[in-house]
């Protein structure tokens, strides 16, 4: 017979506290993250505005493929959306598990597609300001997305019956905020790096 976890009132109170801690901690982490990406966006606009030596985007530079950028963004949105959907259902039910696993699989796709694009940029890293910002900003984003994917895998792994206590379910809701945040950064990157003239 499968083991079932039951909780005393004290454990439930501790669990509620842990959910609050996880939520506060995640918002703080996202605030730090926002400043990290703000630095990259500052670099983007600053170098673009200065256009030192006319080398922000040298003539003849092949811009990165919008098709790849759009695919990566769509995958990121699907992944974040699927996980947000999962958080509406109780943890460990099929309604939670299916979209969570889908978010994981699609999230891995984000990493793979972005990595593929980075290896087929069509421009060299030494070719001015825009390539520098593109590589740094996209690289930072995809590294963080990969780390988030690992985290998601641990959450799914811990959410099986008998595999965890309520305490460790705390990151489940908070994690949705991280994926949502990264999706928003993905949208901003997509607009700036693929569409802004």
């Amino acid at each position, binding site marked *: 017979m499968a083991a079932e*976890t039951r909780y005393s009132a*004290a454990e439930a109170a501790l669990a509620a506290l842990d959910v609050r801690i996880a939520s*506060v*901690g995640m918002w703080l982490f996202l605030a730090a993250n926002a400043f990290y990406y703000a*630095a990259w966006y500052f670099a983007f606009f600053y170098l673009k505005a200065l256009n030192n030596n006319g080398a922000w985007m040298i003539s003849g530079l092949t811009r990165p493929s919008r098709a790849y950028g759009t695919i990566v963004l769509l995958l990121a949105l699907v992944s974040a959306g699927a996980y947000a959907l999962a958080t509406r259902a109780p943890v460990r039910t099929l309604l939670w598990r299916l979209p969570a696993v889908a978010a994981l699989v699609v999230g891995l796709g984000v990493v793979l597609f972005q990595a593929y694009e980075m290896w087929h940029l069509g421009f060299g890293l030494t070719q001015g300001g825009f390539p520098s910002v593109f590589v740094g900003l996209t690289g930072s984003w995809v590294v963080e997305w990969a780390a988030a994917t690992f985290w998601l895998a641990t959450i799914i792994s811990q959410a099986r019956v008998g*595999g965890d206590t309520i305490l460790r379910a705390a990151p489940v809701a908070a994690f949705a905020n991280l994926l949502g945040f990264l999706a928003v950064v993905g949208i901003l990157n997509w607009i700036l790096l693929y569409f802004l003239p």
Partner: protein
Amino acid sequence: MAVADLTTERRLSIPTGIPTGVLLAITGYFAGVWLGNEFGLFDDQNTGIILGYVFATAGFLIGMGFLNHPLGRLLGWRLDPLGEADIEVGLGRYFRLSLDHKVIGIQYLVTILTMLFFGGVGAMVIRTSLLSPTPTIVPAGNYLSVVGLHSVMMIFITSAAIVGPFGNYLVPLMIGSRRMAFPRLEALSFWLVPPAAVILGAATFWGGFPTGWTGYAPLSEQAGQGMDSYIVGFILIGLALITSGVNMLATIIALRAPGLTWARLPIFVWGILCTSILGLLAAPVLAAALVMLALDRSAQTSFFLASNGGSNYLWENLFWFFGHPEVYIFILPAFGIVMELAAHFARRPLFGYRVGVVGLFGVTLLSWFVWQHHLFVSGIAPVLRPFYMLSTELISVPTGFIFLVVLGTLWRSRVWLTVPMLFCLGFLFNFLIGGITGVYLSDVPTDVTLHGSYFSMAHFHYTIMGGEIFAFAAAIYYWFPRMTGKMLNQTLGRIHFWWMFIAFNSTFFPLLIAGLLDMPRRVSAYNPGLQFLNQWVTFSAYLLFSSMILFAANIIYSWFIQPVPAVANPWRARSLEWQIPTPVPARNFERVPLILAGPYDYGLPNAKPVADLRGLVGATGGS
């Protein structure tokens, strides 16, 4: 139905600890160097060295055991998230990955003191070299490297000097919590510091770096491989600031005991809170700038190369956007200590508690709007200068609030002149000089004249060493009995204070004069007419260094050689951290206490005790 055992813990049977960490760090370093040199995009060593440092750090952390928990989670094992099973006793716990905030506080304290010694040795080398107007023991070509190593090491130390040992040890005790919010993040914030220090020290094998702590481009782009140590070491310290910030803030926000309203929060905790906000938000900007610099040096991007679409001003802006709040990361917890101790030793309620909190937040807020005063002489647009001059001058107003609170508390009180209180008074004197000289440097006309001189150097030593390090010493003398159960020798403490106070002022006040006489900083040669002044300063610096040796000797003597057990509450303070037994129990409080009154209600009629330590049945913390 079977009920799962909630306390069951499954662990990876991998031996962890410092030996494993060092072994994996060495392996990681060589793997990274090989990978970088083999597959790096360009034919330089920077990629290999940067990857080597990154892999070495990862190897060290894995060896210490940081991967066990996430890997166990990935494998679906039942784990112990808060380290409840990790309660250990004995000396060995200080050399392992511990999730006990008290152990981490002590680990930080010893590490900071050790690093302070090496940073101080660097200062002595610099001062010895300056005994003569022409380079002596340090060749002119190496002088900047020594200055750089000293400055960055000291910046590493002062970033964590108060939050690391005292924030980690005391905040849960002061807010009535049985734990930290994120013990693993807390441990990570500490275990990032030793690799950062070692990597920084490794710069000496590559000839150091010529940029000082500011790392200005394009010099940092052209510098040798020692610069890579600066980059990776600083990124690690940035990560430590971020992880520490998340942990401290979440702990203070979510884990205050019932009854501990914001209006009752100890002022030291307010200082830690404001510092953590700054660290949390400023360090990511530094991290981004350092990643850009690393990419420029390894992948040949051009963030900071004007000839190829970049700009060195980008570095200056990003660096100082972090760098100026960083200055307040040093000083805000020191403000907290001085206000806290003033109330306890004046035996009076803290005068203008809310004014003090507003002062701390005022400094926190304004510190984001002043960074360009560092660029007054770098060619920023003249129209920007008045704003940054005024915003910088404005910051003296909330700083004045802090002084008002301390002086108002001490006014007409019978101050108990203990050793920690002496250091607080020393702080007030030194920081006043540091603050006033700062006003001159915030003013554009005088800054243009004085910025590159020893006046500027003496100013920031007055604020950081005369301010933060004096408060750090006060905190050690005050909380040492709480942390170790031993009293520091008070006679040696008084000798230490007067020795350090006189030697400090004898060192740095003449340097203000040297600056006014146009002696440039970061230069190994100077006008022979200033030799007597420099010799005076050097001998004073030796005395200052020896006062720190006396400090270290007092700590070793009182802790290990001739320990004197401290009484339960040697300062008869009201605050919560002194109301619990010595040594502090494993989970701090048997139950989460119920806070009944503020910590500074000295002399008030019908003042309630600060807390009911029997607590509320079923309370879990979280006010």
